């Protein structure tokens, strides 16, 4: 279980997160939504200890990760798979080597096993043939999917997706959504999905956390989302639906 308590973070005196508290339960899929620049990525980076809170604490399985040593933190991080917003593939390696990298680094599996598992991960994201290609030659969406394959290579307990569907066509988006849902179910992974794609939220999330004006404005289940009377939340969801509608009619 992950628990964020009264997290506050500012950059150059400009507050990005203020007194944010959040609990992520074992096995659930939580969507963190909010406007662009509302601090979603910053929150996600605190959860794996890439950023240190100005005040407040983050607990992973009861351990306060801001007070442990660096080597302990690294052990905690090994339970996480992270899909970064831009993919963050290592551009010095081929797509295949990117996915194989965590297996090479953290397991003692044989070369053959690693090759097989890597291929399985690439198949899973529907990119069975891109192994030899360099990340710089992949499209944005393909890069994201390779990064997803890399994030799940070690079968993590927790997985964080930062905008998994942004910039993807609707078909690939729903493939990714299915994939996230499938992983959560099969492997009992606890998933955190940072997104502003409401389609994706409705398709995969059990619960939703909405960040607004640097604060955790609203947290609740998908059902609560529909019945909520919170105006700001409504405006955000509506704007998204309008956008989705507009995009759909624009495409047709």
């Amino acid at each position: 279980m992950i628990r964020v308590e009264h997290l506050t973070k500012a950059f150059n005196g400009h507050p990005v997160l203020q007194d944010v508290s959040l609990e992520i339960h074992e096995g659930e899929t939580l969507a963190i939504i909010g406007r662009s620049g509302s601090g979603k990525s910053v929150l996600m980076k605190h959860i794996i200890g890439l950023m240190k809170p100005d005040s407040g604490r983050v607990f992973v399985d009861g351990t306060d990760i801001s007070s442990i040593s660096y080597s302990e933190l690294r052990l905690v991080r090994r339970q996480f798979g992270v899909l970064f917003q831009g993919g963050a593939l290592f551009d010095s390696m081929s797509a295949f080597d990117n996915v194989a990298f965590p297996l090479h680094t953290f397991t003692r599996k044989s070369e053959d096993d690693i090759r097989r598992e890597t291929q399985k991960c690439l198949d899973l994201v529907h990119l069975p043939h891109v192994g030899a290609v360099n990340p710089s030659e992949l499209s944005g969406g393909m890069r994201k999917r390779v990064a997803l394959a890399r994030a799940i290579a070690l079968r993590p307990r927790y997985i964080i997706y930062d905008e998994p569907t942004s910039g993807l066509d609707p078909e690939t988006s729903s493939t990714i959504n299915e994939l996230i849902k499938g992983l959560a179910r099969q492997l009992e992974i606890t998933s955190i999905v940072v997104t502003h794609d409401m389609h994706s939220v409705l398709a995969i999330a059990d619960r939703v956390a909405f960040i607004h004006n640097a604060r955790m404005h609203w947290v609740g289940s998908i059902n609560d989302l529909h019945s909520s009377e919170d105006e700001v939340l409504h405006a955000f969801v509506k704007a998204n639906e309008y956008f989705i509608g507009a995009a759909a009619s624009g495409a047709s």
Partner: protein
Amino acid sequence: MNGVVLNLVRPFFSLGRFSLLLAKACGSLGDIGIYRKNMVVQMVRIGLESIPIVALAAAFSGAVTTVQTAYQLVSPIIPPKVIGAVVVPSLTMELAAVVTGFILSGRVGARIAAELGTMRVTEQIDALEAMGLNSVGYLIVPRVAAGILMFPVLYVAACLIGVAGSLLAAMLTGVVSIGEFILGAREHYDNFGPYFGLIKAFVFGFLITSISCYMGYYTEGGAEGVGRSTTRAAVMSCVFILVADFALAIVLL
């Protein structure tokens, strides 16, 4: 006012952060097993691939020094063998190390900073950390180690090629015969010269790679930031080579 204070504090801030980075690098030496493969790659890039340009620069340094010494010193009362006596120590004690250092500031320093800077702004360093890897150990240790190990090798190559260059220049211009050149070099040979040069090479290798890693690792602000780090890495490496060159001369000579 605020800006002035900030500018006064900045060098100390940088020095502190630089030291912390080195401390973190030393702390990760225990995991060297994971980073070994990376180190071989870096030794090839920093060392082997630099040989052609270093050779070119060393050959010309040797040649120019020969011709210039002939022009400045040789006269009816000073015999041509003085050329060998001047050129060889110039190369081993100063030119081979410093010229190699300058070239590698551009070639190696800029490359390291651009590479790490790009990895920083595209979140690749975050990705390494998020996997539970020590990014300093993985990225910086192999580069600095390769620099420290390969720079002396490049220095030796530069010395040899530099002398070859000066002999060639001597032959082509006829300012001194090869026999006399070698005689002069032998008569005035100082045992400490090559050691002094090796110490320099070692220090310069450390300075270039660690400064460039530092600049790259702490890049901020997208493509523009990468450009800034790259320039700074090359410039600061050169500056610190000059400072270290002077400091070593005072301490060791």
